[in-house]
């Protein structure tokens, strides 16, 4: 173990201001540990964890004595390191699993990894960086992509479109189909003319024209009935029916 490494601690000559600044510069316990380890100026793989722990604890103790605010994770790490230190110093048989040696080794491994990344970052930043060491074209003309539409339609689209244009613009003429009817005027003339020729009671159906068209016959019957009522009102005919729905008879008055 490097006994004289203690002399290289930043604490040794640190005044209060500088210590505060240093804490601000460190992001966390691992960070501080790494810095302390580096101050021993030895390969991390060969560093004495015990010496490192003592430096860390001394640092924290000193910082506390100077009434500096120490973040919680610094204190947690301090507690853990104190535990690790006691384990490392205790006789072997009392040791738990994992062994303090293993924990110490893992801590060492982590410090190596962090150191490796810190160095890698520095080398990355030191490379030929665009905008600092190398420069791109200051005023590139730029490349343009002009979109050109390829229009798609097929023959079916075309003719069905034409069909629907024609269909919707075809002039629409609405014709109400003519139903065969006998108007009231027609029936009046007909009944009035025929009543003169019939002296006896005659069924109203006998006044209707001969036709095969059932629709027309119904219309003629309805109109002739209304015409007969009208003639009866004027006193020109008499009407007789024995019971509802029984035959209706008509004769001249």
């Amino acid at each position, binding site marked *: 173990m490097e006994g004289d490494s203690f002399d290289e601690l930043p604490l040794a000559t640190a005044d209060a201001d500088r210590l505060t600044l240093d804490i601000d510069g460190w992001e966390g316990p691992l960070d501080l540990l790494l810095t302390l380890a580096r101050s021993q100026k030895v390969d991390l793989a060969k560093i004495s964890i015990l010496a490192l722990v003592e430096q860390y604890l001394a640092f924290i103790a000193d910082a506390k004595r100077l009434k500096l605010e120490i973040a919680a994770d610094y204190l947690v790490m301090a507690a853990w390191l104190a535990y690790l230190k006691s384990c490392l110093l205790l006789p072997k048989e009392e040791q738990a699993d994992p062994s303090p040696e293993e924990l110490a080794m893992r801590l060492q491994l982590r410090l190596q990894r962090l150191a490796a990344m810190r160095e890698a970052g520095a080398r990355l930043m030191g490379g030929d960086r665009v905008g600092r060491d190398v420069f791109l074209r200051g005023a590139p003309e730029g490349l343009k992509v002009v979109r050109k539409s390829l229009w798609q339609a097929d023959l079916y689209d075309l003719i069905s*479109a034409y069909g629907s244009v024609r269909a919707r613009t075809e002039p629409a003429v609405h014709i109400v189909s003519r139903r065969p009817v006998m108007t009231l005027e027609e029936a009046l003339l007909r009944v009035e003319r025929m009543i003169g020729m019939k002296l006896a009671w005659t069924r109203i159906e006998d006044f209707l024209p001969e036709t095969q068209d059932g629709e027309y016959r119904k219309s003629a019957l309805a109109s002739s009935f209304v015409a007969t009522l009208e003639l009866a009102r004027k006193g020109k005919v008499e009407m007789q029916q024995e019971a509802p729905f029984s035959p209706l008879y008509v004769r001249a008055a």
Partner: protein
Amino acid sequence: MSEVPEGVRAVEAVLFAAEEPMGVDEIGDHVGPDVDVKWALAELQDHYSGRGIELVERGKRWHFQTSPDLAYILRRERDESRRLSRAAVETLAIIAYHEPVSRAEIEAIRGVQISKGTLDVLMEAGWVRPAGRREVPGRPLIYATTPAFLAHFGLKSRRDLPGIDDLKAAGLLDPIDAALEQLVLETGPEGD
């Protein structure tokens, strides 16, 4: 490749990185007093002649630019497949069946106005061309289809288009609700 003189390299780099054309003095400020800037510029101009980029002087200021004969490369066309709108297909169909027709005639047949872009799209597609003017008051432009139209739709001639009777037989002349809805959707002021 023979060794390039340091002064030439320096001027080359400065002009490449410059955001604006630079005068000789300005370049000199960057590359230092040991470099004969004018000589370096002449060397560079010579070196780049016939390449894809060239060094040019404009109003006593120098800059690199891509060679003018390659300008077409900087602008690339990308094809994108797009379907014609309903309005465009109908307009195209009317032109195909009735050509040559004026815009007013197309609108009369469609029963709906056509927007300005519709004919443009059909002409851009290469299917429709202006075919002179109708000798009536106002001398409206008339439109007809192109050989590219026939080729695209797999027609030998316009006579291959199915006639009205064929359309009727195929049920394509039946009034369809969808067609009517379309009409409502598109309705601009109706053409008389």
